[in-house]
Structures are given as structure tokens and as C-alpha cells.
């Protein structure tokens, strides 16, 4: 069993949200520090992994970036099953995408792991002049539903690392010692932060 100071955990994280909200762009920014104006649409899902050091622990995220189109919804359980964390993404310039995000929140509350750390990301925060969803509205919604909320921009990198760090920081606390679904306590020595990405 891992002890404090030698805490290495693997955490499955899933990104959900409407098509074009910027799920893949957030992951690409976080994992590779890149941004593409036209990110290829994701089919099924893409997998990435990234390790973060938080305090005395390292968290290795196994990230599932899912497809956003409504009909792909039926595939989602395969990706969020057993996930320790989720980021639900909407586009601040689209009210539809915010409504869709709320549906994902409800679904995870019913179907997902009850200890899941869930973040709500209002992405495309750089598009201030096209804003349709106010930060206050989203913040209120997040509070009511036990999520933590951040506005992000994959384009400018605003709050991208922060949201993943915040999840990593909340993980061990949200997960007591019984080694629940989605978190695997690894008893290997700490690996140095490393990145591996597999995308199309």
C-alpha cells in the first residue's frame, strides 16, 4: 500500500461535452502544449496520458477524450465507467453546449462513480465578445451540483493546466484508502513526470 510521500496513483479521466466545445483542444494543450485552430474531429475517443506531480504525490492521468456528437452518446459509458475524474466541457459562446453539459452532469451523477471528481470547464474564454453563457450562471450551477468550475481557453492556455492540477489535488482527498474504482495505487517508485500521447 502506498504511503504519504510515496503516492503514485493512476487516475482515469474522461472529457465529455458537445461537439466542437474544445475537448480535444484542452487535452492537446495540457499534454503537448499545442493549439490547432482546426483540431480534427474525434471519432469514438482518443487516449492520452500525462503525469503530474502534486505535493508529494504523482498522479498519472489516463485521459479519454470522447466524440461530441449526440449519437456517440451511446458509446460514452465505455469511457466514463470506472473513471476517477471527469471534465465536462462547454463553449462559453454556445448556450446549447451549456445545456448539453448539464445533461452530462446529470448522467454522471446517476451512472458514474459516486466519488468522481467532476470539473465544469467553460472553454473558449478568449471569445469574450461572443459570450452567451455568463461565468456567474455557470458558477452557480456548478456549486449547486457539487462540481468545481473554471473558465478555460485552450487557445491562450488560460486555466488549462490549472484545471488538471485542481483535479489531481482533489483526487486523493476524494478517494479514501479503500482503493476504489478508477484509482489504482501503484507501488512502483515515483516516475519522473513523463508524457505520452496517442492521438490520431
Amino acid at each position: 500500500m502506498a504511503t504519504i510521500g510515496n503516492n503514485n496513483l493512476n487516475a482515469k479521466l474522461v472529457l465529455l461535452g458537445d461537439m466542437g466545445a474544445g475537448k480535444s483542444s484542452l487535452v492537446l494543450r495540457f499534454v503537448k502544449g499545442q493549439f490547432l485552430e482546426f483540431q480534427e474531429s474525434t471519432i469514438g475517443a482518443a487516449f492520452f496520458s500525462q503525469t503530474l506531480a502534486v505535493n508529494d504525490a504523482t498522479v498519472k492521468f489516463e485521459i479519454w477524450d470522447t466524440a461530441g456528437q449526440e449519437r456517440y452518446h451511446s458509446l460514452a459509458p465505455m469511457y466514463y465507467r470506472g473513471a476517477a475524474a471527469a471534465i465536462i466541457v462547454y463553449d462559453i459562446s454556445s448556450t446549447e453546449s451549456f445545456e448539453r453539459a448539464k445533461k452530462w452532469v446529470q448522467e454522471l451523477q446517476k451512472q458514474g462513480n459516486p466519488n468522481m471528481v467532476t470539473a465544469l470547464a467553460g472553454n473558449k474564454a478568449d471569445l469574450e465578445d461572443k459570450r452567451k453563457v455568463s461565468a456567474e450562471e455557470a458558477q452557480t450551477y456548478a456549486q449547486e451540483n457539487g462540481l468545481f468550475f473554471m473558465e478555460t481557453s485552450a487557445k491562450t492556455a488560460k486555466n488549462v493546466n490549472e484545471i488538471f492540477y485542481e483535479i489531481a489535488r482533489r483526487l486523493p482527498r476524494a478517494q479514501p484508502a479503500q482503493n476504489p474504482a478508477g484509482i489504482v495505487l501503484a507501488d512502483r517508485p515515483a516516475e519522473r513526470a513523463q508524457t505520452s500521447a496517442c492521438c490520431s
Partner: protein
Amino acid sequence: MFGAQTHSEPSNWRRNTSSNPKTSTATIKTIAKKTNNLSVKFQDLYSFPVEGNIDDVNVLNEVRERVRQQGKEWWALEASKGANWYLQPQLSLSGEGLTVPSKISAIASTITSAMTLKKLIRKGIPPVLRPKVWLSVSGATKKRSTVPLSYYNDLLVAIEGKVTPATMQIDHDLPRTFPCHPWLDTPEGKAALRRVLVAYSFRDSDVGYCQGLNYIAALLLLVMKTEEDAFWMLAVLLENVLVNDCYTDNLSGCHVEQRVFRDLLAKKCPRISAHLEAMEFDVSLVATEWFLCLFSKSLPSETTLRVWDVLFNEGAKVLFHVALAIFKMKEEELLRTHQIGDVIAIIQSTTHHLFDPDELLTVAFDKIGSMTANTITKQRKKQEPAVMAELDLRLRRLNSLKIDEK
């Protein structure tokens, strides 16, 4: 070589320079390794920009040469059997005025032609002949012949200026469909792709637009050259070649295929299947994209099109052959994995570097062994009720969410 530019990949350099070779052999090895790790940017046979290593470039050059050789074989057959011999070999049993022996010999020659064609297609259709051969063997020509010649143009007139949920999603995906391809990135390329996808969304409102079709239609356009031909290939693919409902509503057809694939893996590659199952790795995690994009997002373009050559001639079972082959090729490596991330890394690096189509197809057909279309149809029938029950249960749960909301 084709204007290959080399540039080093920083992470690889760092890894290599950190080693401290003590002997001269080690130095040579390090240099060789460095050369292999050099990242090279080049264009593949269908002008897709690719980043790979020197080996990939060499393989692709060999493939170009093989494509040329294969072309010669097709021309030689054309010279001996007559032009267009490969178009619609039909068993004309009604052949009036023919005597019985000549009927038999006509049938025999048709069968021989079909067998020659099957072998030939597995070895690859030369890119210039692809449009003609695909239209014929897939049944697209026949499909088109049942409607007025002006069908596609009429459809384009009908869709002009229409806005639907499908057109909005298509517009969203146009700049996100192989954005690196030089032609698809032009206004002309995007407009052609838009017309094909929008026209199809009006032809079949159950499918409308499904993400994934953008990649397939884009590749069809690059091969077929004309929009109308690409449109008919898309139609025959969705309506005749693939299993029903792969792209409709809740992708039920795709769910069925994934279950069939899981069973086939257990049967054809039991060791891999057992190992992955013990790791709780569901093969659909990687295979869903393969089946929905018909490998176009995973394999290099010529390799994808070689798969499509066989797909159009032999049907959807080919997708299972190829998917199984990808796992089979890496059996030993996969058996050594302990983490899901490692499985995915192996599979993805394998597919990305599969520049040699024959390497893949040899495994797909020779090592995997034969599977009849009939067996697969039976497997699908077996899985359908389970998929429907699962999707139905999910739908009811989601509806109960909506009721709670009120």
C-alpha cells in the same frame, strides 16, 4: 525521395545523447539509432503530409514501386482479356441462342474471372483504376443505374441554401477533416466535401450526418476524383456494403460489430483476448474508430485504400480481418503489457507506421484464416438482441433522468 526534409525530434536526441557509449560499436549503434529516430516529413501517395522515420520513407518508396509493378500486371491482363474485363462479371444464365456447353463455358470463364479478380484486388488496385473498379465491384454502378442520370445534380439543386441540424454539423466539421491535406484545405476541396455530405444527408435522413463520414467522404473524393462518383460510393457503402445502422441514431450497428469483433478476437487470437480481458481492456476502446472511419484515421492512406479495395469487393467482413490482423501482428508485445496506456501506445504506433499494405493484408487473410460472410451474419444475429436490450435500458435510464428533472 520526394522532397523529404529532415529535422530532429528534440526528445529523441536528448535520450540518445544522454547515453555514454564506451566502445566504438556502441557509438555506431548510437549513430544508427539517431538516424532511425530522425523525424522526416514527407507526402504519401495521396498527398497526405506524414511525419515518420527514415524506415517509413524507404518502405513507402518500395510501396510506390510495387504499385507500379501491380499496374503492369493489370495492363497485361487488359491486353489479354480485353479492356474492362473486370467490370461486372455477370453470370448470364439466360444467354439465349447459346448451346448448353457454351453456357457452361461462359459461366466457367466468369467464375475464373471473378477468382482472378479477387486475387488481383487483394494485391491492390492501381490508383488510376480504382474509381472504375470500385464503382463496378461494389455495386455502385448498378445502384446509380436505377435512378435518372440527373439524380445527383437534382439533389444538389434541392439542397441549395437549406439549413438543417445535419448541415450545421457538417459545416462545423469541414475545416476539421484532414486539415493538413493540401486539397481538402482549399475552398474548392471543402465545397466538394460539403456537397457530398449534405447531399447524402438528404438522401437518407435516418443517417443524416454522422461524424466519421466526413473522413470517409474526403478519402472517397481523393480517390474517385469526381463528386458524383464519391457520392455513389458513399451510398453503396452505407446502404449495401456495411452492416445496417452503423451511423444512425445510436450507432446500434456499430455496437453489434464491436461485440462480434470481441468474440472473433477470442476465437482467432485467444491469448491476446484473455490477456486484455484480464486487464479489463475492452478492445472497442480502439476498434470503434476503426470501424466508423474504416481505418482512414488510423492507417496511412495507401494502406487504408488497399483495405477498401478488398472491402468493396468482398464486403464488411474484411474490416474484421484487418482489425484482427493489427492485434495479431503485435501479439508478443501485447502479451507483455500491464497497462491500458501501453496497449494503446502499441496499437497506435503500429497503425501509424503501417506503410506497407501487404504486411497487413498478408496477416489479415493468410494468418487470420478464412471467415465466411455467413458465419459473421450469424454472429451479428446473435448479438443484435443484446445490443438492443442494452441501448433500450440506457434510453430508459436517461428518460428517468428527464423525469427527475421535472
